[in-house]
């Protein structure tokens, strides 16, 4: 039985701080003019106004994660022999991710299909996922660049969350989404929501209805793929792109990584760091050849992966949750929505032309 609960505005921070005594609490806080997810402490300035500037993905997929540590030493008695000692480093901390937006939480489902994909389980990701309770916060004031509703989501959705907070007059209604969300809440000193549940539903409904419409961006797998060799199209789209990593690194669904050994003297770490397909190094081969040698091919991959290759492999689910961060923070204001719409128009026009 899943029970909704309620917390008053002024009780929220003390409650989160009490949680922080036994586990890491990650929440959107003000940091140097930005709102970013960071471990909460008594000095933190919680910011629940809008969408955080960076996504919450680092909670499950850190920017840089140590996969293992190693140490070289001279073999005993045999000076020419080098011994190598390797230590496993698995995540061991329980965490509570608070204030992720529904799009952020949905982003985790994109990761789940890849890192927890049945036969292929990434132990680092899965351990973190198991140890982290995801508490999403329903949106009440979507930004002009939000489009979750065009990619299969919504400002009050629960995909990927264990718990959903909905702002109501004077506080928040807290609804468990998963069994583990319920189990977690059952141990908390929270009052039952009683009559407030209907109010929360109404808030979510009003916000969802207030969002501007627009064509859904799903179902374009075929169209995007058909443009694979259309250099002119991708060249035109990517002309202004700077080939940086801002879009991918802020994106709650981009999950590509690189692995390197970083060695200092006899000690080293194997780290996994974020990588992104807009970078020249991404597909640079050892021979020096790069199959994606220009920004047009890189842009084709970014759009193709999100709107064609990923949904093709994963039952039509897109690898974009419509948070709009790549639009707001792109130094040249690239618009992912417009690119997909253009791709679709172009592919349809080409097809009609072929039928002429």
């Amino acid at each position: 039985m899943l029970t909704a609960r309620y917390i008053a505005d002024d009780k929220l921070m003390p409650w989160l701080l009490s949680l922080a005594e036994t586990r890491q609490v990650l929440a959107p806080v003000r940091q140097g003019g930005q709102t970013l997810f960071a471990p909460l402490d008594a000095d933190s300035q919680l910011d629940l106004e809008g969408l955080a500037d960076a996504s919450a993905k680092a909670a499950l997929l850190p920017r840089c994660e140590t996969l293992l540590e190693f140490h070289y030493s001279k073999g005993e008695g045999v000076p020419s022999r080098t011994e190598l000692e390797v230590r496993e480093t698995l995540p061991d901390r329980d965490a509570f991710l608070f204030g992720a937006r529904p799009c952020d939480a949905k982003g985790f489902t994109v990761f789940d299909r890849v890192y927890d994909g049945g036969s292929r389980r990434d132990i680092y990701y899965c351990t973190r996922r198991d140890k982290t309770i995801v508490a999403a916060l329903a949106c009440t004031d979507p930004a002009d660049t939000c489009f979750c509703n065009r990619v299969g989501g919504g400002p009050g959705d629960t995909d990927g969350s264990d718990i959903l907070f909905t702002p109501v007059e004077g506080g928040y209604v807290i609804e468990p989404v998963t069994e583990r969300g319920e189990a977690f809440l059952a141990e908390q000193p929270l009052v039952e929501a009683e009559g407030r549940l209907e109010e929360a539903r109404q808030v979510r409904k009003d916000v969802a209805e207030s969002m501007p419409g627009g064509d859904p961006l799903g179902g374009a797998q075929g169209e995007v793929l058909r443009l694979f060799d259309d250099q002119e199209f991708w060249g035109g789209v990517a002309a202004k792109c700077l080939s940086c990593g801002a879009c991918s690194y802020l994106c709650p669904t981009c999950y590509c990584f690189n692995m390197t050994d970083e060695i200092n003297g006899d000690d080293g770490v194997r780290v996994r760091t974020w990588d992104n397909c807009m970078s020249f190094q991404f597909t640079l081969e050892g021979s020096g050849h790069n199959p994606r040698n220009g920004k047009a091919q890189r842009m084709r991959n970014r759009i193709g992966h999100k709107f064609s290759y990923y949904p093709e492999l994963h039952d039509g689910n897109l690898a974009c949750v419509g948070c709009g961060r790549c639009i707001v923070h792109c130094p040249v204001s690239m618009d992912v929505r417009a690119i997909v719409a253009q791709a679709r128009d172009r592919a349809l026009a080409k097809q009609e032309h072929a039928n002429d």
Partner: protein
Amino acid sequence: MASSIDDLKTEIKKALPGLDMVIAWAAGPDPLSHTPLFITEEADVERIEWDPRCSQNLAGYLPGLRGKKVGIVVKGCDARSLVELLQEKLIDREDVTIFGLHCTGAVDARAARKALGSLRGGLESVSVNGGTASFSMSGEPRTLPLAEVLQKKCFTCTGADAEVCDHFIGEHGEPPRVTETPATTLEELEAMSMEERLHFWEDQMSRCIRCYACRSACPLCVCQDHCAAQSREPHWVDQTDHPREKLMFQAIHALHTAGRCTECGECERACPMGLPIMTLKQALNRSIQDLFDYRAGTDPDQAPPLFEFREEEKNIKEREW
């Protein structure tokens, strides 16, 4: 401004037949910043926008388009980047057609978004008049003190008119002036001890996500795809998330642009984490000014000081040490 934009469109239409493309700005998906527009057909000219939201420095595209005949629209600071690119022979003067404008100041999109709140109704116009910025939202004018929404680089603008150009459009004028200029990060840092400064940068760099937008947006970062930051061999910077490594990259960028950086502000504007990284370049530029009496991007015929060798520098009395 309305007349400037019409004149600009007319001039571009006239020049377009002799050019491969013209780079200008168009309305973007975000109501607070416009976006680069690559014009190849006359019909595209109508999409041109010109107001304080034209923040991108389009000069950075030119080295990558070398060999083509390109028209480009520039503000005062963008023109200084052009001068630097010409000085360094990274672009060819005869291939570039420059449309220069007088700039009234560029709006800092992040600051404005914070000050204005929801923009779901869109913005019809943005303008700067004297010490205020006006935003017209669904017919409702909102004014804000200019100092609150102006890009930081504009407070120290040394000339808002494009000084090199083939076609100057509109009236000449002064850089934006605000009555109270907020202290720059450089001034704040200068008041700190070395230890405090290190602490400051450690804190800032802890937020760096290593997206390298700062580098990609810099019109003078010429290595781009072959950046030292991503080279494994030699291994200048490691890939761990340590602020030390990230600051190391900023040091590389600052040293690679020492005496070349025109303070166009793109690195800082592009940084999605809002890190005050132009400060490092400003500090080096102050030293270059003291040592060589030189400011980057002012004279196309001068060579940048670190591009030249003199046995005896005027202000570095090495033999007297």
